[in-house]
């Protein structure tokens, strides 16, 4: 088991009844970086995280987490922090109670750090969990994770419902967390803007499958957004229009960079943003031929 990977999924499949929640999911994250897990709601992001944590059994494939095969020893979760958009704690606990509750479970708990982080985040120790705003709840869970010296943070849709200021603060917190090269972050979201700048790696998920995974810059480089008049994008051989959108005035689609040259001069070709990639891939029909799965660098 290589310890230079924060985690790896290989050929993972999980079914709910006869429906597939995940199918042939493979991607990995080298230690020390942040990966964005991008996809629409219901694409399978939360299922992936739950499988990673061992909360959900997988039917095929294998998962490696911090050098251990999942399900590994329960002690593995000493090193992992989970952050959702809500605090999964009793609302009537004060933040001092939270420490009292969690401390016995974490031998590495650093009380001074907990207090310091809450102070930095502007959260009062005497406050009750239910009194915290959404953004503060998220920061509380981050403070908890950092206080027990987690080295892998799993974020599941942490920014839904947060204002841009809070989202920017989160980017700063993650950047700070990653100054230690033994730390890694998995950030699952449908808001791609969060990852546009700080994302090192990206995995695109659609209908339970991995559409693309790899270094963010490589993925951005692998596609082009093409725009043209209503007839300009029709009937071209050898070019797959991904998630094409046609209106009376024009058409827009995503194409693979190597196919973009085949499009002719009347079509505008531009580098895409992560959002455009996610949107167009998400707009595809449910079972298209799979796009090439890249590798992480």
């Amino acid at each position, binding site marked *: 088991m290589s310890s230079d990977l924060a985690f790896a999924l290989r050929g993972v499949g999980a079914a709910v009844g006869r429906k597939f929640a995940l199918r042939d999911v493979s991607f990995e994250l080298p230690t020390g970086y*942040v990966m964005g897990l991008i996809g629409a709601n219901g694409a399978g992001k939360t299922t992936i995280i739950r499988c990673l944590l061992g909360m959900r059994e997988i039917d095929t494939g294998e998962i490696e987490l911090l050098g251990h095969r999942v399900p590994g020893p329960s002690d593995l979760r000493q090193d992992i922090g989970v952050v959702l958009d809500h605090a999964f704690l009793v609302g009537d606990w004060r933040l001092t109670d939270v420490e009292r509750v969690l401390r016995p479970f974490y031998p590495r708990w650093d009380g001074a750090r907990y207090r310091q982080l809450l102070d930095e985040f502007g959260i009062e120790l005497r406050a009750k969990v239910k009194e915290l705003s959404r953004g503060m709840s998220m920061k509380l869970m981050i403070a908890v994770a950092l206080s027990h010296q987690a080295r892998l943070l799993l974020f599941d849709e942490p920014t839904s419902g947060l204002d841009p200021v809070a989202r920017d603060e989160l*980017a*700063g917190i993650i950047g700070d967390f990653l100054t230690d*090269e033994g730390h890694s972050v998995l950030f699952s979201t449908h808001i791609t803007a969060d990852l546009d700048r*700080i994302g*090192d790696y990206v995995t695109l998920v659609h209908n339970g499958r991995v559409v693309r995974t790899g270094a963010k*810059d490589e993925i951005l480089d692998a596609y082009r957004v093409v725009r043209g008049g209503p007839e300009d994008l029709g009937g071209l051989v050898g070019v797959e229009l991904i998630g094409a959108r046609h209106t009376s005035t024009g058409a827009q689609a995503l194409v693979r960079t190597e196919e973009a040259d085949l499009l002719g001069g009347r079509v505008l070709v531009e580098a895409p943003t992560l959002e455009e990639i996610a949107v167009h891939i998400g707009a595809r029909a449910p079972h298209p031929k799979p796009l090439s799965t890249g590798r992480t660098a």
Partner: protein
Amino acid sequence: MRVVLSNSAGAPLYQQIKEQVGTAILSGELAEGSALPSVRALARDLRISIITTTRAYTELAAEGFIATVPGKGAYVLPLDSALVREQLLRQVEDGLQTALDAARRGGLDRDDLIRILDGLIQAEQQETIQ
């Protein structure tokens, strides 16, 4: 160290970092031996990805501007006059190529170009005198 990134500049972020740091080193703003922030600290401060800052530093190191120390960061290497000369030569070439392309589009010939060049040199000399 001063790095200011532009979202709208055509150049990719790693290249902007490379150029700004490179320029600062060439101009002496960043003295020989001075420490640069680690790739991770820089990524955190600029709010960009670590891979981006790593790439900028890697290319700066390949060109001999800086040396990276694993786990500690990077520092500025002494300016190699041959290195400086090579960088400046490249800048001159790029500048002249740009001028050449524009001249061709504008229908200017070699004599026109030389006349403009002389004019610029003269103007600079007059500035220096003043």
